[in-house]
């Protein structure tokens, strides 16, 4: 029998860590989604296939700007010392993934803007005709397009992966302490981006291609889940105990039903069937993928804050 009594009862930290509420998972979701969209857009720009992927390459970046701004607002709301937020941009802390992230977020904007400039929306061109001529000049130059594409892939990858690294570097929370968290978030983001694009794309060929891409990402994601759990289960007692939160503990239901089941397996099945024309193309699957992506971040952030080193 072990009885532990502590006189401490600090807000946000006792009886367990709860420093990050909805703001952080919400941002992680939006950030990952935008990252996925950027990588996809950048990929097709690099390959010179932007004409066949008009939705991905020209519509998605616009969504990206809006969604990312929403995400950054969410991050800002989480801060406890808001008037000092500018301090992030007075320094680069090379050992802090959050410092990397704050600079990445700032760099992502010009890349997204450059991407949008390649084909700005018709309304904007109507209002500012100069915009139209500027964009036509850039879009005509192969080098510029490829540069934007390359930047988009790099920035998107960085955006998609750094949040996972940020969490995984917090060794005090064993559930996050896996090197696979970064790639998992990136792949999930790619999946969200691909799912969203084949939901809104009008071109059938583009839709199908993106759905196929999403199926690939979803399958890889399943693989990464497995590796993530195996990694934690073969680490220390602290990690084992943390993993139990997802395997029998309080987060088991929401993880396997919403994140894995409804978020990955079901949409994968639907999309495989849709892609092989067994069933009609439906927005249900991508919506489930997006919901699953959001649920993944919520579960990881909340469950991670519950996990701790055993207080023996």
């Amino acid at each position, binding site marked *: *029998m*072990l*009885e*532990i*009594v*502590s*006189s*401490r*009862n*600090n*807000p*946000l*930290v*006792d009886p367990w*860590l709860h*420093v*990050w509420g909805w703001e952080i998972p919400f941002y992680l979701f939006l950030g990952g989604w935008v990252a996925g969209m950027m990588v996809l857009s950048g990929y097709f720009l690099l390959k010179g296939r932007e004409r066949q992927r008009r939705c991905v390459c020209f519509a998605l970046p616009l969504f990206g700007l809006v969604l990312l701004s929403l995400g950054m607002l969410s991050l800002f709301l*989480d*801060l*406890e*010392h*808001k008037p*000092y*937020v500018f*301090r*992030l941009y*007075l*320094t680069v*802390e090379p*050992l*802090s*993934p*959050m*410092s990397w*992230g*704050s600079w990445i977020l700032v760099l992502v904007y010009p890349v997204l803007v450059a991407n949008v400039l390649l084909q700005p929306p018709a309304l904007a061109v109507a209002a500012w005709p100069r915009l139209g001529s500027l964009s036509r000049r850039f879009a005509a130059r192969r080098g510029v397009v490829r540069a934007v594409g390359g930047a988009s892939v790099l920035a998107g990858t960085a955006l998609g992966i750094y949040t996972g690294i*940020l969490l995984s*570097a*917090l*060794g*005090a*929370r064993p559930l996050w302490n896996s090197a696979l968290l970064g790639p998992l978030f990136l792949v999930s983001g790619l999946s969200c981006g691909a799912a969203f694009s084949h939901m809104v794309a009008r071109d059938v060929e583009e839709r199908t291609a993106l759905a196929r891409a999403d199926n690939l990402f979803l399958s890889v994601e399943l693989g990464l889940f497995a590796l993530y759990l195996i990694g934690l289960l073969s680490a*220390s007692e*602290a990690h084992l105990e943390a993993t139990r939160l997802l395997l029998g503990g309080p987060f088991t239901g929401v993880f396997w039903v919403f994140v894995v089941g409804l978020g990955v397996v079901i949409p994968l099945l639907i999309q495989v069937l849709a892609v092989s024309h067994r069933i009609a193309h439906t927005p249900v699957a991508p919506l489930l993928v997006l919901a699953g992506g959001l649920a993944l971040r919520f579960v990881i952030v909340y469950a991670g*804050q519950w996990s*701790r*080193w055993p207080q023996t």
Partner: protein
Amino acid sequence: MARYGMVIDTRTCVGCMDCVVACKTENQVPEGFDRDWVTQRLTGRFPTLQLEIHSERCNHCDNPPCVTCCPTGASHVHQNGGVVLVAHEECIGCKACLAACPYDARFIHPNGYADKCTFCIHRVEKGQDPACVAVCPAHCMHFGDLDDPGAGVSQLIASRKHHVLLPAAGTRPRIYYLE
């Protein structure tokens, strides 16, 4: 360069929480928050029981995860004694450091910045002990330079069985508990 640390004798500690109150008044810690605290671990079956009492606080680790994760550099290692401090006007309140500390030693001050034990560096730099060490009626707390083999703290560690908290967490804490 000095490397400040603490040695606390759990044998003579009676868990009275004087260290907690002294810190609160010395450092004007807001109501509802503790920079240091006392834990009691009871094992066994009545009447054969063992009780271990620890007075805990930030361990001012040699490998502080709260410093590496800080995006603004607000959380830093002080030039004097390797004490881990937070520069209030540089902190944005992102709480990564709270999440990074396996001892949960930090909190967010009502004014918005991350806060914790400072080893009373303002007292130490005047040649005094931290408030908790100076007040302890059981005389069980010791503070000094761990890199000085002649210092009381070093001699205690060398001569008595001791442990640190969560050694496997890799933080290399600088508070030693004598058994």
